């Protein structure tokens, strides 16, 4: 009993000591899966004495988190919605948007598929269900199996805006939980097509196709039609000092840019 008490006391003490230098980051799993944890690691290695708490549970959680804890940082793979801005306003808070990195969404097919390139119009046709057979886009005959993210994903919405003219996904599309699952299904289905973030395009069994003759590679980011920015959101005037310092580092430092690139995104600066 005494022992547990002692441990408990030590834990509270430790927490108390570091309370000031703790940075809480929550939100999108696109950012939070690899990029932000690795940035945090490198930031600590660079000699900054801070603790991180990172939770990646989807872009929307970034904003609920920020309301509860305005000193923290939210990460999101989509722009903040108007309705979300309103809820902040109601609490007298204003949101600040930082661009953390750029992400390209690669259209992937099975590596045995002969199709190497699609036009943006064909991509729209395939994902909306207007085009249903590979022979219509210059491949070997076979019904197209379309894999997409599920409706609550930020990528689902971004892709709709960038590649599908904001039209609805075809009823035949299959909704997968994550990038990993889409890559997995496409790798196992010779007639599959899907989209994943740049970081996932190197998986076995799949290949990206050129869209409008531009390959999905970081070098061609400027011309590639399906690219988006990834954001950090903070509350103006409420962000902790340590948090501000970290964000400034993460968005401008060269070392940070290197990490961003290593995990498959394109640095913002």
């Amino acid at each position, binding site marked *: 009993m005494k022992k547990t008490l002692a441990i408990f006391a030590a834990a509270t003490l430790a927490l108390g000591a570091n309370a000031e230098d703790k940075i809480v980051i929550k939100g999108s799993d696109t950012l939070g899966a690899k990029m932000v944890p690795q940035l945090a690691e490198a930031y600590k290695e660079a000699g900054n004495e801070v603790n991180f708490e990172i939770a990646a549970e989807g872009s929307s959680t970034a904003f609920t988190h920020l309301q509860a804890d305005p000193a923290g940082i939210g990460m999101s793979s989509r722009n903040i919605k108007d309705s979300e801005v*309103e809820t902040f306003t109601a609490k007298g808070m204003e949101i600040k948007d930082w661009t953390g990195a750029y992400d390209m969404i690669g259209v992937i097919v099975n590596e045995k598929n002969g199709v190497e390139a699609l036009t943006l119009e064909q991509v729209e046709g395939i994902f909306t269900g207007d085009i249903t057979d590979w022979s219509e886009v210059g491949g070997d005959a076979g019904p197209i199996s379309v894999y997409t993210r599920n*409706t609550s994903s930020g990528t689902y919405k971004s892709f709709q805006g960038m590649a599908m003219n904001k*039209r609805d996904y075809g009823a035949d599309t*299959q909704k997968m939980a994550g990038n990993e699952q889409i890559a997995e299904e496409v790798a196992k289905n010779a007639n599959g097509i899907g989209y994943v973030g740049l970081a996932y395009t190197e998986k076995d069994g799949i290949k990206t196709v050129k869209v409008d003759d531009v390959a999905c590679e970081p070098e061609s980011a400027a011309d590639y039609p399906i690219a988006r920015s990834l954001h950090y959101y903070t509350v103006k005037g409420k962000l902790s000092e340590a948090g501000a310092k970290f964000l400034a580092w993460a968005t401008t430092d060269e070392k940070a840019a290197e990490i961003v690139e290593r995990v498959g995104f394109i640095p913002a600066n």
Partner: protein
Amino acid sequence: MSSSENKEADGSSAEESGQFRNRGFKILGLSKQDLIRIFFGGNASVAIVVLVLICVFLAREAFMFFPDHHHDLKAYRQSGQEYVDFASDEIKAHTNLYSSLNIAYFAEVNRTAKTEDTILRAYRALMANLENVTAKTWGRFERDLDRLEDVEDDLSDAKEDLEELDPEAEDFAAKQQELNQEIESLSSEQSQLTTRVEELREKLKKEVDLVIDSEEVWNMGVGAEEPPAESKAKLREAVLLSASPEIDDEPEYITGLKAVSKEKKAKAAEELSDFKDTVKAMQASIRPLKSFQSELRSIASKNKSEIVSFSTAAGRKEAWEKGAQNAATEEERQRMAAEAEKVVIKEPDYAALNQPFYESLGKHAELIAPIEVEMAQLYAQIPSKKEVQTKSAKENLDRAAVFYERFENTVSKNREEIKEWRHDKPITVPESVTAFLFGRNWISNSSWHDFYGILPIFTGSFLISIIALTVAVPFAVSAAIYVNQLAPHREQNFIKPAIEFIEAIPSVVLGFFGILVFGETLRAVSQVEWLQWVPGFPMAERLTILNAGLLLAFMAIPTIFTLTEDALNNVPQAFTENSLAMGASKLQTVFRVVVPTAVSGVLAAILLGFGRIIGETMVVLLVAGNKIKIPDFTEGLGVIAQPAHTMTGIIAQELGEVDQGSLHWRALFMVGMVLFCISLLVNFAAQKVLKKLSKI
């Protein structure tokens, strides 16, 4: 501690029971027995209270859906989106028709180069397989090769810099030294990399030679055709050539095949140029309607956002006002108050918003009439089924016939309906209920309009459950009869725990098994030639209704098994003994006496098994394929090879990120409510059936 107290109590009650009440310890006049009774009673009532709370919470959130949904449907009509979707439906029907003819055309063209295409496909498969098999070395080789190129670039850059150094400059010596050092280190890295690349190249060559004839590399993949036997030697050669790291170009054999294939297709296209022209003309004919629709679409979208903005205006104003109250500085407060001032709550003039649509009525009729005539002409020109040769072309011409009829019907139906369309035609609340219960579309997070119709996910859940029950019931019930009545004691002791152990497998583990092992195996088995009579085979997908149904059957077996066994146990021993005494054999006793007596218990077991299946989430989410569409029943029993989405799956998938209190959130609660009602009904039915049993 409690046992010693009990002993004490027992002893005292035995000796002098009269004094027990006085001696027992009491709180607030309650004896220990009373307290225990209250404790257990309290626990039971907590469970009931929690259940009631859940029901109330669920019901409140769910039933708020209908007013919201009603509101949303009204906005859909008032914004004119409904009007625009008339044209969208026509375009959709046209696209389907055009697409099926296009597929038929390409099937005919590609037929001529089938051999070449098969070989090319095999080549791609071979290369992919080879790369997978030798992935480790291959990856290292390519990485080192890239690195070597980088180093060589850096080296030549450094050398250039060295030459360009200005000898007059102040820091010349320092810089020269620095560059020399850099060049030195780069050169040593270069030589290291060069040797490593050479080593890897040798290793890769050896590896490729080793595996090139293996079955793994020559596996063409599920459903793919084998290349013709005479091409295999050449293919092998070509693959070896492309796999050898020093050659970048495509082997001649492959380039040649590609050229031949292209040539043959071009020739076929020329012969079929009439067909192609017809299809192209069809595609062109719809363009005017498309641009017309896209114009109206942007108007309707604008209308919609105006209507939505009106419905949220009050909330926004309140938000700014509240923000102003909470503002930290005076300046901030004033800014927010000004913002609040800016929000105007004014109902849009719906008639004005919809004016463009009423005006476009004539234009729509004007556009669609010639399209209809042209399509009739063009459709008459397409080749008949006799004229085409491939199976795919024939099938797609059949599909085209169906789609053509559908296109005609859509156009003529819309012609009447579009005239009667009014933006202010009221929508009744029952309509919003039927739109949910019988709606054929579930489209959420749309940029156009969200539809919440439960039918696609309901049919998905239902089909999966039916398959699961069909498979699970015979297994579980016969296993229960065997174990309970016929099996020797030793077997009983083994089989029963084994079956019940299934229940201990976490469903997420089963889901992973379903994706990675079972789905893959099922798809491979479905390609086997002599199994092609099975409906739905060969399967293109590995995540299907069948896959999910079979896994759920496995999960339901222990439930049905255990409950059936209980029901059999409940049959009075006297029945069996009497039957045996009358001279009936053991089997006769089982099937004529025991099972018929227990039949209502067995039914209840099946019903509860059904409840277990329809409520299962993880497995269907992972394995059913998540396609939100009413399965295509025209394929008959083959429907089981399609992917589907389920009610439980959609809640799990979409509730995570949805805005609290939004229509989508409430729609998901409503789906939960439907599930809840189904479970309630099933349990109720099971209890009714069981009651019948206890009457014996």
